[in-house]
């Protein structure tokens, strides 16, 4: 078990992410904070690459480091940020307490994470998941519905009797293909629900931005 280049890359990115996130917390100027946050996110994107999640890594950099951070920076532009010096709390017993508790939290999380690495389970046989794969098969092989149905039935029986077969169905696809397949089958509902969520977020943000506040009994008061 030699140390591979990936390991070294991990350590570099991990170091960058850690230092960056510490700086996010301790930089007084929010603009710097946002810069370091972008750095952390990019580093994480790098780690995603290391973890063979290229598509996710790309999305991470585009969506997070790009879009979301821009949003943050933009909002910061709106605010008048002259009172940065007061931003960080001075050292008080409460600060101490906070650090102690967060340290404890950190200890538990890291400790359990470090010690429990071997405890990852293989995914259980999930008939629903297999069904989703079958549906893919069904859609890629347009034959007569009747025979398909017959085939499907056969396949279902086969898979049920041989659980390992379910895993093998995936092996022909690339990661991104697998992602898309799953996204639109197994997680289709969540995906659709997300669209609603985004709509709500948009409408909500707009409504909030438009709202003028103040109590008005149906009257429209000029802002």
């Amino acid at each position, binding site marked *: 078990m030699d140390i591979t280049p990936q390991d070294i890359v991990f350590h570099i990115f991990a170091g960058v992410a850690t230092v960056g996130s510490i700086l996010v917390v301790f930089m007084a100027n929010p603009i710097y904070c946002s810069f370091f946050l972008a750095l952390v996110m990019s580093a994480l994107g790098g780690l995603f690459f290391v973890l063979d999640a290229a598509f996710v890594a790309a999305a991470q950099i585009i969506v997070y480091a790009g879009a979301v951070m821009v949003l943050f920076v933009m909002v910061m532009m709106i605010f008048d940020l002259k009172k940065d010096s007061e931003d960080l709390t001075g050292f008080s017993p*409460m600060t101490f*307490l*906070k650090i102690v*508790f967060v340290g*404890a*939290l950190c200890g538990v999380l890291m400790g359990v994470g470090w010690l429990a690495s071997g405890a990852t389970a293989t995914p259980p046989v999930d008939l629903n998941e297999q069904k989703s794969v079958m549906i893919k098969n069904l859609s890629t092989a347009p034959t007569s519905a009747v025979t398909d149905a017959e085939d499907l039935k056969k396949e279902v029986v086969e898979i049920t009797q041989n659980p390992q077969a379910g895993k093998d169905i995936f092996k022909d696809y690339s990661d991104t293909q697998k992602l898309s397949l799953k996204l639109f089958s197994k997680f289709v509902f969540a995906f659709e629900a997300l669209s609603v969520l985004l709509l709500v977020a948009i409408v909500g943000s707009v409504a909030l931005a438009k709202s003028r506040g103040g109590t008005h009994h149906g009257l429209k008061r000029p802002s």
Partner: protein
Amino acid sequence: MSGNLLIGILLLSPLLGFLINGFLVKQNNKSSVRAGCIATAASTVSFICAAILFCSLLGHDAPPSIRSYFFNWINVGDFRSDMAFVVDHISGIMIMIITGVGSLIHLYSVGYMSHDPKPAKFFAYLNLFLFNMLILVLADNLLLLFVGWEGVGLCSYLLIGFWFSDPKKAAAGMKAFIVNRIGDAGFIIGLFFIFMLFKTVQFDELSKLTYAVDVGWGPLTLATLFLFLGATGKSAQIPLYVWLPDAMAGPTPVSALIHAATMVTAGIYMICRLSFIFVATPNTMFIIACTGALTAVFAASIGLFQNDIKKILAYSTVSQLGYMFLGVGVGAFSAGMFHLMTHAFFKALMFLGAGSVIHGMHEEQDIRKMGGLAKKMPITHITFIFGWLAIIGTPFFSGFFSKDEILWRSFASPMGAKLLWLAGILGATMTAFYMTRLMALTFWGKSRVPKDIHPHESPLTMTIPLIVLAALSLVGGWVGIPEIIGNIFGIHNGWEHWFHEVVVDVEAHGSHLEEALTMLTSVVLAGCAAFGAYVLYTKKAEQLDGVKAKFSKLYKIIYNKYYIDEIYEGTFVQAVVRGGKWLWSFIDVKVVDRTTYLLSDLVRGAGNGIRLMVNGNVQQYALYIVFGLVGVMILILARAS
């Protein structure tokens, strides 16, 4: 059946009188005669019934008792008490005394209360008293007796406090009731003992039982002791006598009827009723005798120097009651009953006489302001002399026989003792002294009546009862002439025989010579004392001050009744009141209530404290979340390992 009816009328007639006078007759001055007539009629009807009932008991083939059952009162579990009454030899005598003397006093009151604003109320109470007293003596079981027992106490309370706008008089009534209550509590405990031991409180059932003599302090002794405690309350014995002198605050007829003739003798009656139990408990008997003797001497000694005419008579009553207890204590129940009767006559007479004096003196009661009234109030004077002679034990007057019987029994009875006899003699001597002093200061000697008071003789309604009672004071004792004298005249002592069936007398053992000697001793000593007093208070009155000065301390103590009232006030009363105040202000308010407050303040304070956690700082809230998270994690993970 006729027994039932007669007893019914006997009882209900005073009750009816009470109801009519209490609710129908207008409460004003003018109704005095009407109310008095109604009440007197009611009691007279009772007297007639009582007389008929009594007569039916006479004769050889007469029934030993007449029972009458009205209805069941309490019947719970094993306990049963009926509204049932019995007239037998003992209660027969009692009802005669009660209704007889009662009627006379009712009659007397018509005159006495003629100027009172609320005579109807007075007569109503008087009738109610008669009713309760009759229940007491006629009751066929102990609990019903207790009904009358408390009932008479209640009437006593009402009548003592009759002129309630005087705080002292109201207080005296209350004192009487409460002191009586102490005795009553004892009585009821005694009753419980009796019931626990014998499963019944019916007199006839109890009397049929046989009792093993309890020489120690077993439950039977306790039972009788507690009953005796009840008796000391009602009959004003040491230590519960204190209410009786104060009870003189009531109208004088009340003093005569309730606090001399009838109610106060209830204790004697009760003990005689249960004589078969009492004789089985020699320890109790001894205590009774001692208490009686002590009370007789003690009260007489207080009576020596009192100046209030009614107070003197009151202490005299306490003293005489002591004699009765001495009698029953040595097992001479019939002698006790005998003295009860004679005392009822002469003491009622004296009280009424005193009432007549007070009436004539316009409510003046201090004998130092009297003197020489013999001329102004001849009838009162003559009748009073009868009473005086009776009480000091002048031979052949009623008091002589009964008192001597008691003294002789205390001397000779196996339950008696020489010391008891000696105390009796001492008491008798003192009685002679202070009664003579009373006579001397009131009726004889020079007049010391203030100028603005013009004493006058009382009206006829008042003097007739006096005359009747005077006669009775003379002849009342002749039913129980002792053998040594009776043999001379060939008269049989019917009294003891009469009681033979109901009362368990303890036989006296002594020779006639001893009896004659003791009798002589007491007569001589009493005579000397009386003479001494007469001389002192009529002839040598001016030397008195010197004597007083010589013994000023002793005189003061005695004059202030040995400060017993003050001692009681300072100890028991104060203890109770202070205790109550302490319980309230400390235990109730400071401890119990404060604890409640403390708890609620604690909870509310904790709440306000915890609310400080919600201080508006959102990071603080986040810290709580972290705290909770870490806490839960550590608790679970650390405990797991």
